[in-house]
């Protein structure tokens, strides 16, 4: 292949963020696009994920917000006629789509060349049987699995291999539909689910307790190979690598083991014929050098993003160049810029990746970790001791941990059981076991975690005990203090270990420790990540802080020409790639205006932690302590806290107290908006309405308040025992049950009860203000009524069905609030609107989740504008506004219930979605259809099952039901719904609930037999009964991969959309082609 033949390349993205496929592909896609751009190649991107950096202006030449499916990709190919296609940068979604395009002959038909790894090599790695065959050819050991196509064969295979076995669905992302089975009963259950995802299921012998080791390998077309990084899982085999704490480089392998596996990895990718990057995963015997290859991912992956960040080696960028035909020897090391890209990074630090779970958000979810992935995000911590690295990491995941020690006491009934069956809390369980006197050997026997890791954790525990013994700051030994800092203790942990909380406020105690250690000269140093462990000079701006060191690697000039932007931390439900986009845009604007941009963030899945994006990247914590460490060194002109979501927002007040210059809206104003009481008082003062609420400390007060406002109410306990953090209660019984189950109500832990307004529209105002005056704004409207969390709701922008009066009032109130809070920068206000009665629900003086969506639909970059405001630059009000648009944007949510075994896939006031897409259309139907298809919904072929909830909801869906019948769909309905439809002369077949045993036909049977193509199941109320009929139907739909909608208004919108147009009616228009109304 000649490099110069390729003029235009299509890159497939990975779509909405979901469990198993998250921000890492924004990073890899962005890098690939950058590599192509550098070559002068025209780029076309298909990715419906509107919140990503890769779908921003200037990253790709043409961007299509369309589903990444063969149908749409073919249409784009036919229109754009690219010469090349990149399949390896959009996760499993892009890879699977690419294989289908190849198999359907579409690539050949349009003469599109697959750049990089050939499709045959992809197929060889994806099809388990072929994969084993290919590795057998070169005598490389694999986990022998038997591919089966029905349950009977699965049972037979398991019997032959002997239990325990593992079941995997072929061609599935991140271990979807896989699991361990100890016996036939478990096998039956798991295999059925696996078959719903894939016609081929693999049964294999389990190697539980072996080490899991990964290598990231790169090969060019001249057969030159390198391994960029190896990684070792802290957790033994059996826990999905996405669920595991991962350490880079490996810690417990000898030279001979390391290089044995490295040589094998190279042998494998040569044989398979990878061109670009791939990942080889091994199971490795802890008692010998025996190994098995688990799998090979012939694409960029979560691990490759991690490896890139862990080493500074830009794998995706290099892989894209190799795909164009370059040799590794042609390319330079991006960090040193002088040495060759053909090399293997040497690390002089240790990296810990820790997953972030949000299992607490889901009802009924299985918390045990296993072979299928449940985590929603991850963090990467860098340190020069293992203790430092893991303690940083545990803080970074943002679940209230202060490190390995110094946390709230964990209540565990059976510690041995908890050690044996790992959950998201397993690290804390180990700490608890140390406290209870368990030895390292005992814990190792129960957890199978390598003793080396346990010994290191024990070091932390020992230091905590030593601190505890010194009892007071006055008797604290200097060496011990230094040791604690080297082991990653924060000042907070030290203060707590010393018991200082008893005498004073912990924040004050923490400051005392800080002051004391500074007088001793115990301060962190800044080190570079330079890929060569200081062997060659490197002018890298990729930095971290450590206490294991004596000197900074960088110089500080103190010219006050830098601006620090605080990042958004771990992706989690409620804060994800959208804030990365905001951070990256802020960095860009800072740079363009003559300041040096500085980012602090620690999420390896992001673009903001790409060291190319800023002048200095501190890959480090966003704790108050670490941010202050950096600010004291950096001495910036100012700090931006409003583009990274809630984490930096929460730091505003404490930074302000330390006289840090916060750019834009003042910390005091942020506090006035965040503090419920202050905010309410302000709204009262300016005469703006909000739903009534009260913070209550006893059941009597709760009842008295509800007496006044009436049911339903929104209940938010301040201390949650288990389950969801908030809930809507429709009656006394629900209220009492929720409060009893979920929360303590006491003086110390008040519960906030708010009036819940039903059938109200929810409207969002995203805006930028300067000195209290709104400069630009976007008003958008939820399709669902209030009650569905704004992060889960489907949002239309510009609003399609709002009264002009409503819009006018919202604008007016927003102006008043902006003025009252003297906002300078981005902000978001959420409103309830019923008739023209407007109430404020929430106000955030920072960028919101919907900023990228509205910015891209409106084609006005609100963050750019906000950043200019914060920099004090003159800005002009944009000339256009949302009423000029002659197209519609729909933002739809992506759920990952299929990953979260047993969770109830129902939407409520707590957010559950893991990602989103945003699609454009000339009308609402087109935009809805694109966006719903982009989040995995399918247009049903012939049959729909309806259970449409309360009488009111039934009525609201009647027209949609009629429409379905008129389009020839066969309707099935459960009892009440069926009766209602029949009464209204809508033809339907009644089916029975699971509880109606013995009656036929059973809804569940029909689902299992794939006689139903879509399920609309509207829960009657918003409390999720875990074992109800509805739950069983919903869960079955998810487990059997049948599209499910649980909201009447969304279901109606979707049904209207697909009944009004077919797939072929969808216009294939790029973002650029959606223009303004002709004047």
């Amino acid at each position, binding site marked *: 292949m000649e490099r110069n033949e390729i003029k235009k390349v299509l890159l497939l993205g990975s779509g909405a963020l979901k469990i198993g496929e998250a921000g890492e592909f924004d990073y890899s896609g962005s890098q690939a696009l950058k590599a192509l751009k550098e070559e002068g190649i025209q780029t076309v991107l298909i990715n419906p994920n509107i919140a990503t950096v890769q779908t921003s202006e200037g990253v790709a030449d043409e961007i299509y917000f369309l589903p990444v499916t063969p149908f749409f990709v073919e249409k784009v190919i036919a229109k754009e006629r690219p010469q090349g296609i990149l399949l390896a940068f959009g996760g499993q979604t892009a890879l699977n789509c690419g294989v289908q395009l190849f198999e359907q002959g579409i690539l050949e038909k349009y003469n599109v060349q697959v750049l990089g790894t050939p499709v045959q090599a992809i197929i060889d790695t994806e099809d388990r049987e072929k994969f084993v065959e290919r590795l057998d050819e070169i005598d490389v050991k694999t986990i022998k699995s038997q591919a089966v196509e029905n349950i009977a064969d699965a049972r037979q295979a398991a019997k032959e291999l002997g239990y325990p076995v593992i079941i995997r669905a072929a061609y599935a992302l991140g271990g979807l539909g896989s699991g361990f089975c100890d016996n036939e009963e478990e096998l039956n259950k798991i295999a059925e689910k696996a078959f719903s995802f894939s016609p081929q299921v693999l049964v294999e012998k389990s190697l539980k307790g072996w080490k899991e080791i990964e290598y990231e390998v790169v090969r060019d077309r*001249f057969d030159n190979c390198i391994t960029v990084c190896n990684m070792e899982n802290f957790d033994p085999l059996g826990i999905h690598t996405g669920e595991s704490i991962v350490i880079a480089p490996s810690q417990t392998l*000898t*030279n001979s083991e390391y*290089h044995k596996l490295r040589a094998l990895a190279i042998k494998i990718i040569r044989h398979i014929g990878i061109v670009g990057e791939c990942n080889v995963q091994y199971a490795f015997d802890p008692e010998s050098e025996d190994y098995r290859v688990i799998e090979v991912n012939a694409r960029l992956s979560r691990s490759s993003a991690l490896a890139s960040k862990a080493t500074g080696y830009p794998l995706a960028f290099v892989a894209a160049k190799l795909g164009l035909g370059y040799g590794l020897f042609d390319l330079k090391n991006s960090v040193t810029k002088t040495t060759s890209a053909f090399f293997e990074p040497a690390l002089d630090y240790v990296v810990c990746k820790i997953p972030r779970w949000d299992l607490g958000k889901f009802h009924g979810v299985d918390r045990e970790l296993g072979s299928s992935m449940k985590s929603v995000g991850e963090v990467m911590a860098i340190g020069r*001791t293992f203790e430092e690295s893991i303690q940083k990491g545990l803080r970074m995941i943002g679940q209230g941990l202060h490190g390995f020690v110094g946390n709230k006491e964990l209540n565990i009934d059976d510690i041995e059981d908890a050690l044996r069956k790992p959950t998201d809390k397993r690290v804390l369980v180990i700490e608890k076991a140390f406290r209870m006197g368990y030895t390292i050997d005992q814990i190792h026997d129960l957890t199978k975690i390598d003793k080396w890791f346990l010994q290191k954790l024990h070091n932390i525990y020992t230091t905590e005990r030593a601190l505890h013994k010194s009892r007071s700051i006055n008797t604290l030994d200097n060496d011990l203090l230094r040791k604690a800092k080297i082991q990653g203790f924060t000042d907070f942990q030290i203060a707590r270990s010393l018991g200082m909380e008893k005498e004073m406020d912990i924040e004050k105690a923490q400051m005392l420790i800080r002051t004391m250690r500074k007088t001793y000269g115990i301060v962190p140093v800044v080190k570079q990540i330079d890929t060569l462990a*200081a*062997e*060659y000079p490197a002018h890298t701006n990729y930095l971290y802080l450590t206490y294991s060191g004596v000197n900074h*690697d960088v110089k500080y000039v103190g010219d006050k020409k830098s601006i620090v932007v605080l990042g958004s931390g771990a992706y989690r439900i409620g804060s994800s790639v959208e804030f990365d986009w905001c951070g990256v845009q802020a960095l860009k604007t800072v740079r363009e205006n003559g300041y040096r941009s500085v980012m602090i963030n620690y999420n390896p899945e992001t673009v903001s932690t790409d060291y190319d994006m800023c002048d200095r990247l501190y890959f480090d914590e966003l704790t108050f302590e670490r941010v202050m460490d950096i600010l004291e060194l950096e001495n910036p002109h100012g700090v931006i806290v409003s583009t990274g979501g809630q984490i930096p927002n929460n730091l505003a007040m404490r930074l302000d107290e330390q006289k840090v210059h916060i750019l834009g809206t003042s910390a005091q104003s942020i506090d006035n908006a965040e503090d419920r009481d202050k905010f309410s008082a302000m709204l009262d003062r300016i005469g703006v309405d909000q739903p009534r609420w009260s913070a209550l400390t006893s059941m009597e007060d709760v009842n008295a308040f509800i007496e006044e406002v009436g049911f339903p109410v929104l209940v938010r306990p301040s201390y949650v025992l288990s389950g969801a953090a908030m809930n809507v209660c429709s009656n006394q019984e629900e209220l009492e049950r929720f409060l009893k189950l979920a929360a303590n109500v006491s003086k110390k832990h008040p519960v906030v009860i708010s009036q819940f307004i039903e059938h109200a529209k929810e409207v969002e105002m995203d805006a930028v203000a300067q000195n209290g005056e709104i400069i630009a704004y976007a008003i958008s409207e939820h399709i669902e009524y209030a009650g569905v969390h704004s992060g889960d709701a489907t949002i239309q922008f510009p609003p399609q069905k709002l009264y002009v009066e409503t819009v006018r009032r919202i604008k007016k109130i927003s102006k008043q609030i902006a003025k009252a809070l003297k906002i300078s920068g981005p902000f978001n206000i959420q409103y309830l609107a019923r008739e023209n009665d407007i109430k404020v629900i929430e106000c955030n003086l920072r960028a919101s989740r919907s900023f990228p969506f509205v910015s891209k639909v409106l084609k006005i970059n609100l963050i750019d504008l906000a950043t200019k405001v914060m920099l004090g630059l003159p800005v002009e009000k944009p000339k256009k506004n949302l009423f000029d648009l002659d197209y519609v944007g729909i933002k739809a949510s992506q759920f990952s219930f299929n990953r979260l075994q047993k969770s109830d896939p129902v939407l409520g006031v707590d957010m559950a979605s893991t990602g989103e897409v945003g699609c454009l259309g000339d009308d609402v139907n087109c935009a809805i259809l694109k966006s719903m298809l982009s989040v995995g919904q399918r247009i049903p072929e012939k049959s729909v099952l309806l259970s449409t909830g309360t009488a009111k909801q039934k009525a609201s869906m009647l027209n949609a039901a009629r429409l379905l019948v008129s389009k020839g769909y066969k309707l099935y309905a459960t009892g009440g719904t069926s009766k209602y439809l029949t009464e209204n002369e809508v033809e339907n077949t009644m089916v029975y609930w699971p509880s109606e045993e013995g009656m036929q036909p059973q809804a569940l049977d029909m689902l299992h037999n794939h006689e139903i193509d879509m399920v609309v199941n509207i829960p009657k109320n918003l409390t999720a009964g875990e074992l109800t009929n509805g739950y069983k139907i919903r869960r079955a739909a998810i487990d059997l991969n049948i599209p499910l909608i649980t909201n009447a208004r969304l279901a109606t919108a979707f049904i209207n959309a697909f009944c009004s147009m077919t797939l072929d009616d969808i216009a294939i228009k790029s973002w650029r082609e959606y223009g303004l109304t002709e004047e």
Partner: protein
Amino acid sequence: MRKVTLILDDGTQFHGESFGYDKPVAGEVVFNTAMMGYPESLTDPSYAGQLMALTYPLVGNYGVPAFSLEENGIPTFMESSRIWAEAIIVSDYSTEFSHWNAKESLADWLKREQVPGITGIDTRELTKVLREHGVMMGKIVFDDEPENIPYANYSGVNFVDKVSCKEIIRYNEGAEKKVVLVDCGVKANILRCLLKRGVEVIRVPWNYDFNELEFDGLFLANGPGDPDTCEDAVVNIRKFLANPVVRPCMGICMGNQLLSKAAGATIYKLKYGHRSHNQPVRMIGTNKCFITSQNHGYAVDDETLSADWEPLFVNMNDNSNEGIRHKVNPWFSAQFHPEAASGPVDTEFLFDDFVKLL
């Protein structure tokens, strides 16, 4: 643990703690950026006279395997019969270890072999100092014995003579092909790599005139220090090259330098010595690139090679010479370590190439 100070010749000091044998020591301070392989590196004779600083901070994790010998007298896991480095300098010594094949901790081993080990040193900063200044002499002094100051010389010392065998040793006697191996400080894995390929190895002291022996090929091994102190070996090699009966020859590291000297080239000291597992080399005139393990402070100035010779490999980072070959005869050498141990094994095929030539 006793507190120690590492004092470099330029006065720079680093403070740490002793975890090995408690003894002040002096030597040439060198760094290695390899992330694993401390048992192999410590027993590599090329480290004789040197204080070895590891940039990878966590050391000792997997302990140390048992010191055992195979039937042929070659150690099972180590690279020679003892630790040759004068000391090991690390950032975070792991007092506990975990590995199925470990018999003792690194600390216990160092104590047994009476070799100092120090921890708590910012070895990244140390590397930066060495990188900018070039390698330096340094000493480890115990803070509670400030008067006990060790002294040592590195340059000009013939370390090869210290580490080479003193008598001829024969391995795999009676094999069809015989290879003379000039032991300048040979690593055990070179012997293993040759023996694995079925040849007899006649290991001779570095200054032994092997030309009188009966053999089919010549192998020039690695070794410590300055090649200019090994003139005797160069004389013997010249004799070999001048022999009308042309027999194959391969050299590694010091062997590359001695062969180059015999071919007329001069040697210079590198500003940044190559001590790592990640050195990229390219076979000249091809697109073939290899990741190699290296440990050397001197390099061949390939401009000075005589006309019959040409460079074979080049370092892709600094363009220094990584090997030479004769334009006609089957003589070649590599500056890197195809035998690895420790390090990547990508260039082991060079042994195949050599044995095929015999």
